[in-house]
């Protein structure tokens, strides 16, 4: 016998088999595809987000190696001709950056010198615009194509642009090709930008391309109050901002990968289980082991290939959808304004192929090897297989325990985020491996009460689950892991939300908050008017400012606070009363993330570049704040004035002794000054929570996806199980079970599985949440939050597990109940 016909026979047998079970085939492919799709989706989203981020950094900074920055006011414009004409540094481009809005659309206006762009940023790129009018005409702007289309504005059209607290009419004098990452930028000449911003005489910064020796020279020569900062480190710190966000998504994608691998393993072991008799026969016919192994693996490769292709096909649009959600989060939180374009990174797809094909192969390897190495004919008895599984149960349990301990050890104090992830992964896998043994225990414990309540039928259901462990174990584990991810994320977000809510309740003490809609400073007259309002007991004044520093911008919160407002701060470190004294006398307090990122504790000193050069400020305390993951430095207004000059007020907190009267007076004030935005405490709190929820919208979607993966997994496992047990069912029918009773038995069985998965998912989910809260978030962002054991996510997870198991059981049960017993008995 040559090997050729044998190979043909094995293939034919395998192919026929797969064809004969179309549903199984579809489920196998769907299982792989869903796993791949989720990984691809998240990965591409991550890639696109970071690429968009890098590109908008590029659009803003171009080739610049250095930047000249100044104090809060910026850089005096005279520095530019000094650099360019007198010092002959021609790779220098001035910029005045300005937040503006056209209608509801928030944009960044870059005031540039179009002639200086070439060597440095090349901002305007390709396009057609009237350079003469851009420079000479007041209020001339250039739009990127996409934005022009969005605003339906073309050459010569006028736009109403709000900037620095006033509405200006500007004219479009040209459009340029949209550059990725610069979708929300528009350009004007420096002159127009200065006039719109009301900042005549000032630049935000000057970008430079310098050789190292030029940089050293310039550093020494720069006028007092200005600093040369390295664009590389600045770029890096901008990148770090987005990295923190990516980390959260990566965690989710790793989880999806894990569930996907479970699914693939599940699918493949089923496909082989179904065929154990066939394999036994083939072995008996003289088919060699290696031949069998090769063919099974080839089969897995085909399944994996088709599943991967489908997964990629679904993953790309999925990524597109996720990107919209992420984009909003990024533009809410960070500097990158929008992510319009999905970029399909080659590496993501390589990863997907590796996962889909490699994972399938790997997952198939264990069952394939087991199948191939059984002696001929022995395979025909299923009980042997189940016995084998029980032997392996010990091994799996042992491995799970080891991983769990390892994971727990890895949680030892450290700041390394990746170690946290390794620990998270190890703990998840470890706990997942404990699910089968727990199932056995659970079902044994359940068999007795079920038997008492439902007689032999109940016992049968419980024991059926244990008896079918070779198939149920994996499905159960997959379900439990997926559900635990849902529970863990839910608990983490819930705890986060509770902490934020708590914090908002504590920090938002004032009855009303007042600011201009465009965040422009409030005029002294207006502040005086507000101070005179009836019903008012106290005010706090504040303003946010971005202070450019070598390591990236520092958000400075300049405040003039009363004791009541101070009482709202939740100190994580430092003694509040002492901190209050120090704060009044020139110290700063910093938020928790800021302290974390800059390794600061009370008693340390923080260097900030002031109007008079770099000064050190004592840190008096660390307080809770969830409004920025990069952190904020709070400084008393008196301190700011001393080192940075006068600080305009942008928002006021109003404390009432008679809230009703104050509210009425504010209504009248608002009628008089329509540009004012007055928010009640409750209103602001609600809006803050809205922003929070929006930020986590993407995680919600991912939770739903994880749940979907779980349902598909369980459905695939159960329908395989049902096919598998056709003969058993036929026997039961022949013994007198009615079809209805049989269906109930199977639904009960899967219900029990769901129950078990749901129950196991809860502790697993809680552990995940604790690791996410205590380790991952703290190491990534420096936020501490209180773990809240919320019933909501726990119940959600439990019901999800139970319902998905029940729903997944309906179709196979229905099919089985309808089957003709005689055909089932004749299976061989």
């Amino acid at each position, binding site marked *: 016998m040559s090997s050729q016909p044998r190979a043909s026979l094995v293939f034919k047998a395998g192919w026929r088999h797969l064809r004969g079970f179309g549903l199984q085939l579809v489920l196998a492919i769907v299982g792989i595809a869903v796993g791949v799709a989720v990984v691809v989706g998240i990965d591409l989203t991550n890639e696109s987000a970071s690429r968009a981020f890098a590109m908008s950094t590029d659009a803003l900074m171009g080739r610049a190696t250095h930047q000249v920055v100044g104090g809060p006011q910026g850089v005096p414009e005279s520095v530019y001709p000094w650099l360019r*004409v*007198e010092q002959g540094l021609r790779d220098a481009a001035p910029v005045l950056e300005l937040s503006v809005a056209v209608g509801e659309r928030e944009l960044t206006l870059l005031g540039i010198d179009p002639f200086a762009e070439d060597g440095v940023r090349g901002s305007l790129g390709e396009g057609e615009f009237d350079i003469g009018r851009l420079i000479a005409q007041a209020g001339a702007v250039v739009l990127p194509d996409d934005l022009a289309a969005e605003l339906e504005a073309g050459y010569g059209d006028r736009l109403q642009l709000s900037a620095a607290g006033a509405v200006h009419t500007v004219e479009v004098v040209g459009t340029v090709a949209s550059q990725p990452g610069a979708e929300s930028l528009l350009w004007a000449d420096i002159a127009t930008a*200065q006039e719109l911003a009301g900042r005549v005489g000032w630049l935000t910064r000057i970008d430079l391309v310098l050789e190292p020796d030029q940089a050293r020279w310039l550093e020494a020569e720069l006028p007092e109050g200005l600093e040369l900062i390295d664009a590389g480190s600045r770029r890096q710190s901008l990148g770090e901002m987005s990295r923190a966000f990516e980390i959260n998504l990566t965690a989710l994608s790793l989880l999806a990968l894990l569930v996907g691998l479970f699914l693939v393993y599940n699918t493949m072991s089923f496909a082989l289980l179904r065929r154990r008799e066939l394999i036994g026969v083939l072995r008996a016919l003289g088919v060699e082991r290696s031949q069998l192994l090769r063919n099974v693996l080839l089969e897995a490769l085909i399944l994996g290939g088709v599943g991967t292709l489908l997964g990629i096909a679904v993953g790309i649009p999925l990524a597109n959808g996720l990107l919209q959600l992420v984009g909003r989060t990024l533009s809410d939180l960070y500097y990158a304004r929008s992510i319009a374009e999905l970029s399909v990174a080659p590496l993501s*797809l390589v990863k997907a*192929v590796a996962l889909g094909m490699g994972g399938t192969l790997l997952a198939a390897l264990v069952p394939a090897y087991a199948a191939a190495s059984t002696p001929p004919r022995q395979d025909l008895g299923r009980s042997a297989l189940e016995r084998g599984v029980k032997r392996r149960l010990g091994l799996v349990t042992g491995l799970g325990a080891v991983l769990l301990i390892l994971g727990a050890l890895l949680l030892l104090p450290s700041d390394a985020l990746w170690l946290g992830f390794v620990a998270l992964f190890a703990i998840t896998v470890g706990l997942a491996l404990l699910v089968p043994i727990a199932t056995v225990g659970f079902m044994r414990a359940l068999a007795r009460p079920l038997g008492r309540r439902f007689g032999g039928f109940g016992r049968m259901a419980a024991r059926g689950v244990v008896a079918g462990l070779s198939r149920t174990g994996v499905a159960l584990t997959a379900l439990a892991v997926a559900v635990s991810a849902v529970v863990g994320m839910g608990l983490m977000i819930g705890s986060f939300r509770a902490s934020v809510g708590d914090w908002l309740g504590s920090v938002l003490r004032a009855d009303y908050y007042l600011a201009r809609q465009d965040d422009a400073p409030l005029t002294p007259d207006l502040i005086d008017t507000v101070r005179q309002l009836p019903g008012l007991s106290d005010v706090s004044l504040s303003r946010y400012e971005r202070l450019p520093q070598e390591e990236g911008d520092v958000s400075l919160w300049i405040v003039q606070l009363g004791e009541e407002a101070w009482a709202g701060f939740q100190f994580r470190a430092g003694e509040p009363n002492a901190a209050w004294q120090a704060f009044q006398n020139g110290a700063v307090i910093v938020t928790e993330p800021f302290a974390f990122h800059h390794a600061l504790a009370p008693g340390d000193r923080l260097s900030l570049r002031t109007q008079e050069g770099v000064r050190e400020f004592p840190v008096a305390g660390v307080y809770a704040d969830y409004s920025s993951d990069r952190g904020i430095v709070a400084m008393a207004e008196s301190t700011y004035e001393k080192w940075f000059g006068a600080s305009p007020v942008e928002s006021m907190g109003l404390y009432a002794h008679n809230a009703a009267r104050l509210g009425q007076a504010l209504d009248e004030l608002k009628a008089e000054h329509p540009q004012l935005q007055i928010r009640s405490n409750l209103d602001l709190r609600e809006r803050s929570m809205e922003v929070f929820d929006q930020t986590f919208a993407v995680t919600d979607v991912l939770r739903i996806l994880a749940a979907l993966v779980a349902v598909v997994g369980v459905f695939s496992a159960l329908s395989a199980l049902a096919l598998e047990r056709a003969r058993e069912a036929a026997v039961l029918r022949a013994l007198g079970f009615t079809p209805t009773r049989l269906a109930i038995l199977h639904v009960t069985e899967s219900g029990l599985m769901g129950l078990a998965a749901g129950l196991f998912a809860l502790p697993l989910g809680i552990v995940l949440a604790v690791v996410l809260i205590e380790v991952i978030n703290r190491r990534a962002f420096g936020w501490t939050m209180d773990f809240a054991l919320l019933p909501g996510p726990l119940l959600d997870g439990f019901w999800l597990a139970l319902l998905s198991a029940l729903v997944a059981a309906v179709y196979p049960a229905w099919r089985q109940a309808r089957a003709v017993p005689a055909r089932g008995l004749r299976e061989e």
Partner: protein
Amino acid sequence: MRGQGLKRIAVLALAMALAVLVYVLWPRQQPQAGGPAFEAAELLADEEAGFARAVEVREFVFPADHGAHPDYRNEWWYFTGNLEDAAGRAFGFEFTVFRFAMMPEPIERASNWASRQLYMAHFAVTDIDGERFYAAERFARGAMGLAGAQAAPFKVWLEDWQVSAEADEAFPARLQAATDEAGLDLRLEALQPPVLQGERGLSPKGAGPGNASYYFSMPRLAAAGEVRFGGERYEVKGQAWLDREWGSSVLERGQAGWDWFSLQFDNGAEMMVFQLRREDGSTDPYNAGMWIAPDGSTRPLRAQEFELEPLATWESLATGVEYPLRWRLRIPALNAELTVAPRLENQELDLSVRYWEGAIEVSGEIRNENVRGLGYMELTGYE
């Protein structure tokens, strides 16, 4: 053979996966940033309405007229010259500052950056013996000290490229222009007073009223200083020519470009001629020139008094444009027949405006006397 079929399916599946990968990974065109997003020609294509126009003969006043005339739409300071080092190595140079007014009226705006004046500068050096030619350009606004022109003390500059008076008088002046690749640092001394071109300085370019410019030349400036190519420095001496022109008109319909010649003869005479090339090839009635005899006396040359005949062309390797580089110039009234030839063929400036401007040599007869000389030629509008 069914097993083969299955294998084929496996191969097909892999091929499909590969095809999808290739499709997704295929590099797609990304918009590239870079290059000036405008063309200098656009600077000239604006509406003419409202600008001051060169309509009638005016009084030229110095030093005031060395400075800018901001109400006219365009203006230039055009320095060209031939130089030589002690060893006889020959060089040519061009340094031009152009001014363009974007709006006819002065603008009143809060920002110091606001300006209606744009400046463009071209800087080119020719190493005739080394057969090297280098050209660069710059743009800047006439504000913030970035670029400008002033009469007293005389200074015209774009960033650190500049010509500035040494003292109260416009000349002697120092010309400095440099990039990493080449540099020029010359002291220029006037050997002759300004010569008014056209009709007492009013140089018509077409039939329309105001379709003219005010035009004077400093036909002989002694130049001495340094030329630099990369790191090689040459101490040079030679003679330069300054053309000053301002107006608000551009070429008329039917005019394709112009050919301009400045010639400095060994015997102390100079000559300037230009012809406006018409698209139909005919002689434009506004062609003109000026003969400056060794004693400084001038004689305007009218269109019908001279004839320019191209003898040989040269095709630029860089742009594919063909320029007539050898010419015969006949001026019966002066009994002159001259041949003009480039000192180096490749002196094409492929900048935001593309033209040929380079050092030339001239030889022939004027009034039965053999003459030789050097000069500069400008050829524009060739495509």
